[in-house]
């Protein structure tokens, strides 16, 4: 059953060097359809370089990336976005003074049809508002008005807007970078709930997080990055949190793990 699961995204032997430093040293990566894959690793383990390569933010020196089995070469984040990969970055990447609807459509605004849109380049605010409401209702984000400024929302709600923006427009993959950092327990759970709903809609999610309880609560599989490589992919239901951290820090050789704890 596991072998038959379709790979949505795959990377083989990614290498990325920054001068003397080798951030990625032949890293592999596999994302399956409909899963939440957590990516964890110590600072410098190469997880952010991996994510940057997958999202087009950097170009790897070597290695190949496949999307639905097709080889891709992203030169910019926009290329990745056109391929249906949406990223939600750390630090609440929203414009606080702008409305929720405006934030959802920032950079992909919809123009009016006919003369007003063609010649005057006038925006179709009504349509964008409508779509924003539909998409947010789809993801059951309980925010009443799409025309309120993002800064009137709580931290968790803001993060939900950022996650929902990625999920609402992604065709293939949603990448979330530390979406629950800087949030309280209740707010964090709100975002976790939303991430589950994104997966249940059928979109695979790559989740980068330092928060082990959150990772174990929500991930289907855990990709452990270490020294620029993939140390192991483990099944959170079959391995303890402490063993996972031990692999991450190098205290435990993944080769000694029981076979059923790998995924």
């Amino acid at each position, binding site marked *: 059953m596991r072998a038959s699961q379709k790979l949505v995204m795959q990377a083989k032997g990614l290498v990325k060097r920054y001068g003397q430093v080798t951030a990625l040293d032949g890293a592999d990566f596999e994302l399956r359809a409909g899963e939440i894959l957590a990516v964890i690793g110590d600072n410098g383990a190469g997880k952010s370089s991996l994510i940057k390569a997958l999202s087009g933010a950097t170009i790897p020196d070597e290695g190949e990336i496949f999307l639905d089995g097709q080889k891709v070469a992203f030169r910019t984040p926009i290329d990745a976005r056109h391929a249906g990969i949406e990223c939600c970055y750390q630090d609440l*990447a929203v414009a606080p003074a702008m409305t929720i609807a405006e934030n959802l459509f920032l950079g992909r605004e919809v123009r009016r049809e006919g003369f007003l849109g063609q010649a005057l380049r006038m925006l179709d605010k009504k349509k964008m508002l409508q779509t924003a409401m539909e998409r947010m209702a789809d993801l059951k984000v309980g925010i009443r008005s799409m025309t309120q400024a993002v800064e009137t929302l709580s931290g968790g709600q803001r993060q939900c807007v950022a996650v929902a923006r990625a999920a609402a427009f992604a065709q293939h993959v949603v990448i979330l970078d530390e979406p629950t950092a800087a949030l309280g327990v209740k707010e964090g759970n709100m975002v976790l709930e939303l991430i589950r709903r994104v997966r249940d809609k059928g979109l695979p999610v790559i989740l980068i997080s330092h928060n082990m309880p959150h990772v174990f609560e929500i991930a289907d599989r855990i990709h452990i990055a270490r020294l620029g490589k993939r140390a192991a992919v483990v099944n959170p239901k079959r391995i303890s949190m402490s063993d996972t951290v031990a692999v991450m820090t190098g205290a435990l050789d993944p080769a000694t793990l029981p076979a059923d704890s790998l995924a």
Partner: protein
Amino acid sequence: MNTLKAKLPPISQLGPFIALVIACVIFGLTTDNFFTGANFALILQQVMVVGVIAIGQTLVILTAGIDLSCGMVMALGSIVMTKFAVDMGLPAPLAILCGIGVTAGFGLINGLLVTRIRLPSFIVTLGTMNIAFAITQLYSEAQTVSNLPPFMTALGGTFDIGSTPVSYGTLLMVLLYLAAWFWLRETASGRHVYAVGNSPEATRLVGIATDRVLLWVYVLAGVFYGIASLLLVARTEVGDPNAGQTENLDAITAVVLGGTSLFGGRGMILGSLVGAIVVGVLRNGLTLMGVSSVYQVLITGILVIIAVTVDQLSRKGAR
């Protein structure tokens, strides 16, 4: 709590109207001919130069920058267009375009230094302000340019609304404000100006070329300064190398009074028009009261600080 606050416009956006009403009431009570159509037409005519500069300045301030060179660039533009027409004998429309080209060129330089070398706009425009001033003095040899072709001063002509004469320049200013308002409010590129000022990082991450937005804002601001040059020439009927000195701060005052935040990303272009009118009313009313121009400068200075304080406090409240 939040919802009530969200429904009320922030005090920074009501400020200019309150200031305008207070100023009008005071001047209405203390002077005889403040509340006359002719006086209001005069105020608007005096406001048009600062008003049009303030459009460009608003764009820059919305991106969280500031343009200290606006008045001096405007003065250079007016010298270039008048000298090109009078001394070099260029046809007036071409001379005007050359003047606007020079001011847009200064905008381009400001924009390139801000986006390519990442210098703070404050320092860049402090430099270009002095450069523009020096070029103005050198090129004009500190001499006023007169005997302008009529085409160049045509915008100073008036038409009557009722019995009140309104200049074409005033009308042009209002049209430019409406165009800028539409652009900023109803188009994607206009919204991106707000987004860049509000959160440059978030804007870049969604794939908007923030540097290109910034560069265009500075160039466009330069174009508005160039149009202001033409309005100045039309109003005064000379090319004055010493122009632009009060307009520099007056334009910034107008924008800040109008409720645009110096921190970027918040504000309304039409507020700047009200702000410019407030500055104009103050100067006019104080002149009618016989207050010397030094006190007018003093009062403008105090006004800016009050407006910025309100901006800062209302931002803290929003957090």
